[in-house]
């Protein structure tokens, strides 16, 4: 049916053509007004790929992550979102057989350069995982752990208080700092992990589905927290919850799974990366459209 065909013409080109023919001035920059005068780049990825034991997991990812942005990585299972996230603080180094290719600059420096100490890099680029993973210690010792290891033992009380305040957990935790962290609720434990992360004063926080194990109230608290945290830090978040990406992120990258001809191998590839508003109201690629509107999984 002609109607279905015309409905399917959702690509940017066909829209612009239609608009041009109709005499409507399309400004491609309409959704990118904020882009002008944008802050510095934290990460610059050019042709980044990851292989596990020679088998590609993601291929040819090129994108920039900007300072003080929340950048969301979305896509179906197996598209390599978490793999890509782990590239950003060299967590893949810990996986035997993992190889990273392409160029990945962190503040203009090669993150995989021979002079870079991955431990030092992870100090600057913290990570919060899907499942809250506090140490079996007190709330206070969880937060103080990083600074102590780094030899920052002065003003430790202040550091702990600031980190807990930064993670919006101070009011709930201040009277039980010596209590075991496992006594906290799931949502509180996740905020504790965020506090532990910011206690070592990183500049970037990577979050791998930080709310997938939390109820909606705890999720809302973490999302509010992210809006606050991005004033100070840059955040990259992997999420399966598209509404969460829409709510909290400034820019969204959509990755999808690609198969080889024999369908033996699959890997992730970046389909579209743009302002979040654009991705969720008027994506350029029909595959993004189908995914964000939940029509294909």
């Amino acid at each position, binding site marked *: 049916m002609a*109607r279905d065909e015309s409905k399917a013409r959702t690509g940017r080109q066909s829209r612009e053509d239609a608009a041009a023919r*109709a005499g409507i001035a399309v400004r491609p920059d309409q959704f990118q007004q904020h882009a002008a005068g944008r802050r510095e780049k934290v990460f610059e990825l050019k042709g980044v790929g990851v292989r596990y034991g020679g088998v590609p997991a993601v291929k040819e990812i090129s994108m920039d992550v900007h300072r003080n942005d929340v950048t969301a990585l979305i896509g179906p299972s197996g598209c390599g979102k978490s793999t890509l996230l782990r590239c950003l603080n060299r967590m893949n180094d810990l996986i035997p057989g993992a190889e990273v290719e392409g160029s990945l600059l962190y503040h203009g420096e090669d993150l995989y350069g021979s002079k870079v100490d991955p431990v030092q890099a992870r100090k600057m680029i913290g990570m919060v995982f899907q499942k809250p993973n506090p140490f079996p210690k007190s709330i206070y010792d969880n937060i103080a752990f990083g600074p102590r290891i780094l030899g920052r033992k002065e003003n430790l009380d202040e550091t702990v208080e600031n980190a807990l305040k930064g993670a919006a957990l101070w009011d709930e935790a201040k009277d039980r700092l010596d209590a075991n962290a496992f006594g906290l609720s799931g949502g509180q434990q996740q905020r504790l992990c965020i506090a532990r992360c910011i206690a070592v004063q990183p500049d970037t926080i990577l979050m791998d589905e930080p709310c997938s194990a939390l109820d909606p109230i705890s999720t809302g608290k973490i999302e509010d927290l992210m809006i606050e945290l991005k004033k100070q830090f840059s955040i990259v978040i992997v999420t399966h919850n598209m509404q969460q990406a829409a709510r909290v992120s400034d820019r969204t990258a959509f990755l999808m799974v690609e198969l080889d001809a024999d369908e033996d191998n699959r890997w992730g590839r970046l389909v579209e990366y743009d302002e979040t508003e654009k991705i969720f109201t008027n994506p350029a690629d029909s595959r993004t459209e189908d995914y964000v509107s939940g029509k294909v999984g």
Partner: protein
Amino acid sequence: MAEETRIHYGEELEQLEASGLGGLDLASAALGRTLEVVEQQDVELAQLVIADDDRIDGRYLEVHQALITLLATQSPVATDLRLISAMLHILKNVERMGDQCVNICKMIPLTGNEPPADEEMIRLILTMGKQARTLISQSKRAFEERDVEMARDLVRLDDVVDNLNRECFGLALEIGDDPDRREWAMTMLLAARAIERIGDNAVDIGEQVAFVVTGLFREFEDASHPDG
């Protein structure tokens, strides 16, 4: 690999679009009968048109509520979101078209049984009405087919309606000194104005077509900045 999901949601949205756009058929039929009312001075038919407007209002409420429910339950994004936003907008246009027909049908009985009608004025209004019906059907087709050029062409069709409206105004100015005739002409001017508004509503629907397709909202013609 990519399996289609949310099939029921997709079907529901399609049905709501068809139902909402079906409101344009109701509005067009109401306008058709309204023109008969004007031509025949048919007071009874006028009452029918007024009563029948409940169907248009009912369609508005039904589709509007269903769209709000979809917004609440399905979190539509991208094209779906633009479609729902456009549908909410055009439902209002459809409802206004129905109301304009009611306005005309309420005026006609006030002109009396055998008003001092001017044939040329009646002819102009009927021509306007037919043109407005063409606008309604073209706006519906443009929406269904997501055809921005066809939507844009509504401006050209609407210019014809606007010109006829101005002709009506000119005729009314020269209608003479007879008070009854002047009163009749004033009433007809209001009717012409109502039809002119229906044309504008159809153009608004065209603008929503462009929004659904391109993601950008632009007025086809900006009344406050006609040269912009």
